[in-house]
């Protein structure tokens, strides 16, 4: 049940009509049922995994709190870690590492056999395992109190708007919204409408059409492409993945608002970042902060020498790459981002993250240059992310460096599509960036808002892609 399908909106209509008639406790039970229905709609067998994760983490959190000392608490935390990471490992990484191990042993003359498991990757497993893990870790760190209501906790784990592709919510943020009566105040309907419409626009108009361009180019053997086509393919993919993922997140935030929840924003105009460090404060914020808090800082963060910090950054980003999937291309993508973050620190002593301004609305020529440079560095990493294999990525890179830059029909189509879809979108994002407020449009005069919504609606209606793609992040 995808957010860009009619069936989802029929489902949501049925959910919200009844939901608004119920008192708080009944709302929670009803939302839990709806969330399990939503998840089971893909494959009811997946429900057993989410239930297992929920039951174990619920009890482990209580045990951690009840444990008299850190040593005992750590044992219960370990159970949670082993279960969640074990599930992830088996379903997501087993086949990859088994194959790689066998391939590595073969040249040594060792023929081994490992059990062959043909497993379907459960939708959203990486998202909800990270969400539940953060809960037990936070309880262990005394940063959150465990809930005693199992059904409330089950709703925190399985809340359907953000279940399969995030944002990965922390218990300290989402759980109180489950347990306490909700009225987040503000303009729930207005904000929700904006997020939903803008999200659908980003997914259906931007991402799916850019996917058409990117697929046409990445599906063609590298030998048949020229440098310009590869460049356009990479640009198209950069906006496909941004539109796709941020579109999903926007819709999740929007329907969350309509249900009275305040989910975190996952993106903040990432392609206006002026450095890789800033990019990671604007891109997939819920994952980057998760990795920072539960991996980078426990590894030592920037508390040691520069080399030590660089090591931590590299480990964090490589694992962040692998979080996306078991593939060398994701690993290299993570490594590249690790290097982009680490190298300036190691050699130039760039200002630490805490002292870098979080937000720089004024665009000077120097900043513009940095934005363009950062965008292209990120695009380089996207090439690895999207390529079928490392060989494919390297072949495309060679093409980028070649002298052949003829304007073919494919390049003309791709370039035209980018101008038509992405240029107005970027202008709008630049306006949000200048205003420094993700909800700037909702505060604009109503006529402007209506005009913008009509534009979104007409683009969805007439300029959808002939071959829509699934949400990319569902596979993670």
């Amino acid at each position, binding site marked *: 049940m995808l957010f860009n399908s009619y*069936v989802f909106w029929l489902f949501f209509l049925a959910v919200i009509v009844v939901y608004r008639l119920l008192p708080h406790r009944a709302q929670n039970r009803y939302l839990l049922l709806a969330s399990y229905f939503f998840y089971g709609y893909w494959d009811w067998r997946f429900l057993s995994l989410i239930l297992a994760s929920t039951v174990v983490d619920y009890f482990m959190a209580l045990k951690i709190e009840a444990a008299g000392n850190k040593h005992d608490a750590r044992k219960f935390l370990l159970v949670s870690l082993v279960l969640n990471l074990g599930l992830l490992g088996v379903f997501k990484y087993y086949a990859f590492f088994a194959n790689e191990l066998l391939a590595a042993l073969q040249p040594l003359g060792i023929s081994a056999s490992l059990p062959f498991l043909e497993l379907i990757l459960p939708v959203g497993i990486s998202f909800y395992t990270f969400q539940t893990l953060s809960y037990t870790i936070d309880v262990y760190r005394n940063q959150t109190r465990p809930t005693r209501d199992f059904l409330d906790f089950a709703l925190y784990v399985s809340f359907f708007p953000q279940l399969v592709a995030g944002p990965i919510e922390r218990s300290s943020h989402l759980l109180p919204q489950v347990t306490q009566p909700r009225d987040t105040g503000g303009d729930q309907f*207005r904000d929700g*409408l904006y997020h939903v419409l803008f999200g659908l626009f980003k997914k259906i108009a931007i991402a799916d059409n850019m996917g058409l361009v990117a697929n046409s180019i990445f599906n063609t053997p590298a*030998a048949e492409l020229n440098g310009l086509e590869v460049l356009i393919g990479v640009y198209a993919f950069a906006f496909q993945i941004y539109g796709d993922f941020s579109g999903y997140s926007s819709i999740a935030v929007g329907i969350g608002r309509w249900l009275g929840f305040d989910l975190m924003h996952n993106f903040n105009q990432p392609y206006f970042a002026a450095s890789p460090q800033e990019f990671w404060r604007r891109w997939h914020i819920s994952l980057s902060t998760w990795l920072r808090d539960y991996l980078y800082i426990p590894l030592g963060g920037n508390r040691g020498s520069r080399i030590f910090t660089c090591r931590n950054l590299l480990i964090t980003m490589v694992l962040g790459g692998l979080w996306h999937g078991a593939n060398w291309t994701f690993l290299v993508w993570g490594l590249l981002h690790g290097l982009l973050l680490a190298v300036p620190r190691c050699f130039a002593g760039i200002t630490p993250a805490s002292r870098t301004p979080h937000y720089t609305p004024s665009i000077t020529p120097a900043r513009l240059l940095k934005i363009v440079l950062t965008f292209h560095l990120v695009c380089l990493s996207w090439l690895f992310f999207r390529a079928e294999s490392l060989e*494919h990525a390297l072949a495309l890179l060679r093409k980028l460096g070649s002298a052949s830059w003829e304007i073919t029909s*494919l390049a003309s189509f791709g370039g*035209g599509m980018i101008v*038509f879809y992405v240029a107005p979108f970027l202008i709008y994002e630049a306006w949000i960036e200048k205003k420094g407020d993700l909800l700037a449009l909702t505060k604009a005069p109503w006529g402007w808002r209506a005009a913008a919504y009509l534009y979104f*609606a007409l683009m969805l209606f007439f300029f*959808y892609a002939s071959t829509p793609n699934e949400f990319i992040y569902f596979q993670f």
Partner: protein
Amino acid sequence: MNSFTSSFKSELKVVAAVLVGLLTVELGFGPLLPHLSLDLKHVLALPNIAERLQKAPHPRILCIGNSLTRAGIDPETLQESLEEAGIRDAGLAVAYPDASGINEWFFALRKYFLDPRGIPDLVVVITARDHLTDRPLALSRNSAYYCNGSDFRDVLFHELGSMDARTEFVLARYLKSYANRGRVQPRVFSRMIPRYQEFLLAQEQGKFKRRPEPGRPAPPDPDPRDPEFQRFESLLELGRDYGFEIAVFTAPMMKTYHLPSGALELIREKGAALVEGSALPGIGPENLPDGSHLDAEGAKVFSKRLGTELARLLLKKREA
């Protein structure tokens, strides 16, 4: 909960303005339709084509196909060829919606051409290799233009499995803008994006489909099942039910081909006629400039042969 309700009320004028905008688009779409594409102009003319055929003298011949038929039939040559072969004053109609196949032909036949006041004597299905094979229904166009009321209900309740498909099918039936929304983008892009048509042609020829890098094995066939021909069978049964003859005429392509064995069996079983036109003497690669559609010279050769074969069928029937 209060904030939701109050927010809804305050945002009502924005929602209303957007709905008025969309309604204006829907109302403005009707007059625009014939200008959206030549194909649509032709589709909208199908009731008139059917009416003319009803009023035409016997034998009434309906040729139905897609753009291969549009490019391949020269009506004057066909009429002359029929007359030369002894069929004088035949009523002739040609229906050729672009990118259509067995689904559209079946529904169009039922909706426009089976009025008891003037059922055709002969329906000629002009096809290439795969147009008779069962395929997923093009929901919007079939709902809006090809399905009659009972076909609409049949498809909606018995054929479509998913709620998404059903919703699309219903929306396209009642909203002109929805049914034709797919025609806007190519129209705009062909004016805005240089070499857009060239790209589309390459895409249609499968140039940008996933292929393995040189030296890599090809991915397995995603759908290795045998093709099915249920809709084609239903179309052949229409001939029996309504008392008209059916002839299947294969259109010339770059490479000689044969219809799938399942389709051939059905043609034999249901007593339809088959004329192999896929490799006609006098038509060469030079007559297929884009690889599949005939040029004017090729169309003359094809139409002449079609006329001769149809006349033979009709005379044989007359004798019988």
